[in-house]
């Protein structure tokens, strides 16, 4: 893909490591050098521990020398969104509330990465508590889009997307509640995937909206994303919503699926607000599939127009409940101005949370409050059923659905910061997937005239990740969008 070590795919790196043409320490050093060279401008990381990363790399090389390599991810750096707990490392959620928090334990995905020999590499920036679409809500700094530093990388997992895009990590993990993996992946020209709800354990992921949150991979290719998902997926007794389901060898299985597939196009995803260049790029991708012999069918998802409203009721309600734990008592920021215990709650939360988090706590508290619950929360949960049913009906006649990932390419820093509703609309094509619990992937599918990346979203059926990867890969293999690297 690229002659630069820091731009190789994980699959390429795995081979180099296995053939002893490369050591993990050499790889880690090149990633650190690259990060030092560009992160002052990209600002993908909240922090990273060079010595710790090199020690992990050394341990991997030692394992390999003794013939004890743990598998394809052994010795490969994986960047982690700063909401995923790694024992002994900072865990900030890009919030002042947790600015000094150090995690006392590993999340389940961290444990699985360590078992696979991967190097846990740094803490990646996000919108505070994963609430936002641009990383502008981070309490620390705004991450920049590697393709245009004046623009946002998307969000909330903007640090993860930008790090993979800028050559600062070959792989990364993010979390996706309403599009927070897929939208930044689209804006930064990388692959980003949200698994079926319940496939990956949420234990040790800082909770935003528990019925929607899923952890998923960022990568430079579909194969790489499949590799990383395979390492983190699986039932976990510590997450009661995680599913008991077989995790196949995605990489092996997906290569066997050649199609042709029946693919759905929903007119609701090509309406008002869609940037014409994005629309054209996605239409061209649809034509590609048609020429490959896929059957392209119109499907109807009639409740799509309500998805955003349902999402902002359910997500804020769950966030207001989840974030009640930040009370300044047991951990996190405690106000020095407080006069009594109750005052600690009020003032610590006022000082510790940023504006978007406060807005969502207020909205969520309101929709759950006495007298409003039925009108908002309960009604939203019922419409959620209808949205989910739309997808399940569509899957009677198609294998997957093709849509744009984001209605527009990356917008400018500050452009939507003052208008929450406009910002919320950038998730319009991704949130239905979370409400329905479906898997979705964004793959690069072109560039705007001004050189900004565009993403194609493929929405799959529950627990049919293999099929989803195969469909995305068949497009990826015939195009070279991913190899158009940012000029940094």
């Amino acid at each position, binding site marked *: 893909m690229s002659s630069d070590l820091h731009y190789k795919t994980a699959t390429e790196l795995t081979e180099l490591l296995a053939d002893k043409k490369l050591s993990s320490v050499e790889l880690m050093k090149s990633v650190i050098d690259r990060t030092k060279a560009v992160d002052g401008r990209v600002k993908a990381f909240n922090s990273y521990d060079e010595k710790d990363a090199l020690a992990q790399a050394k341990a991997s090389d030692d394992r390999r020398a003794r013939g004890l390599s743990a598998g394809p991810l052994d010795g490969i750096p994986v960047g982690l969104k700063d909401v995923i707990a790694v024992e002994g490392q900072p865990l900030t959620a890009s919030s002042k509330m947790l600015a000094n928090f150090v995690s*006392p334990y590993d999340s389940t995905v961290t444990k699985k990465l360590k078992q696979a020999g991967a190097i846990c590499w740094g803490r990646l920036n996000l919108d505070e508590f994963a609430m936002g679409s641009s990383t502008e809500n981070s309490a620390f700094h705004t991450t920049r889009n590697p393709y245009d530093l004046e623009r946002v990388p998307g969000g909330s997992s903007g640090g993860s997307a930008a790090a993979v895009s800028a050559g600062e990590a070959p792989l990364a993990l993010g979390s996706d509640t309403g599009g927070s993996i897929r939208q930044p992946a689209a804006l930064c020209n990388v692959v980003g995937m949200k698994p079926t709800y319940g496939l990956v354990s949420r234990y040790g992921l800082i909770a935003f909206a528990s019925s929607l949150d899923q952890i998923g991979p960022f990568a430079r290719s579909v194969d790489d994303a499949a590799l990383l998902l395979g390492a983190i997926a699986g039932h976990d007794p510590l997450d009661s919503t995680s599913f008991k389901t077989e995790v196949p060898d995605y990489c092996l299985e997906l290569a066997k699926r050649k199609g042709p597939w029946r693919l759905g196009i929903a007119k609701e995803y090509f309406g008002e607000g869609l940037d014409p260049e994005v629309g054209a790029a996605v239409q061209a991708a649809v034509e590609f599939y048609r020429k490959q012999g896929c059957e392209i069918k119109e499907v109807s998802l009639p409740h799509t127009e309500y998805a955003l409203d349902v999402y902002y009721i359910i997500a804020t309600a769950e966030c207001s409940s989840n974030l009640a734990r930040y*009370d*300044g008592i*047991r951990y996190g920021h405690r106000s020095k101005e407080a006069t009594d*215990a*109750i005052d600690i709650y009020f003032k610590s939360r*006022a000082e510790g949370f940023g504006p978007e988090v406060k807005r969502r706590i*207020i909205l969520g*508290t309101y929709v759950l409050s006495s007298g409003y619950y039925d009108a908002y929360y309960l009604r939203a949960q019922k419409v959620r059923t209808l949205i989910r049913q739309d997808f399940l009906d569509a899957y009677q006649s198609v294998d997957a659905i093709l849509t744009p990932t984001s209605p527009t390419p990356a917008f400018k820093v500050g452009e939507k910061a003052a208008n929450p509703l406009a910002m919320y609309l950038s998730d319009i094509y991704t949130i239905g997937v979370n409400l329905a619990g479906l898997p979705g992937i964004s793959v690069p599918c072109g560039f705007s005239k001004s050189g900004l990346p565009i993403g194609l979203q493929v929405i799959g059926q529950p627990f049919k990740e293999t099929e989803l990867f195969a469909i995305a890969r068949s497009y990826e293999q015939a195009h070279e969008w991913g190899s158009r690297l940012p000029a940094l």
Partner: protein
Amino acid sequence: MSTDLNIDHVANLARLALTPEEKARFSAQLGDVLGHIEQLRKIDVSGVEATAHAYPVFNVWADDVARPGLPVEAALQNAPEHRDNMIVVPKVVEGE
């Protein structure tokens, strides 16, 4: 569906101190969002079941086996203030 968001009442429920500027700004911004949400009223949801989770799992049982928890030091390492293996808070009861 009413959008008479009483910001003082809701902020109190959320245990969140807001400045007068925040109250004014959030009220206006959330008014826009709630205005958008109004369209949910158009949908007939009679007879529709509520979805709490996309793939609900019921009756998840675990064997009742003791296992090690976080050591006290680890559990307290992020506490704003602690003493004698306890978190220090201002007095919450009157008298003795």
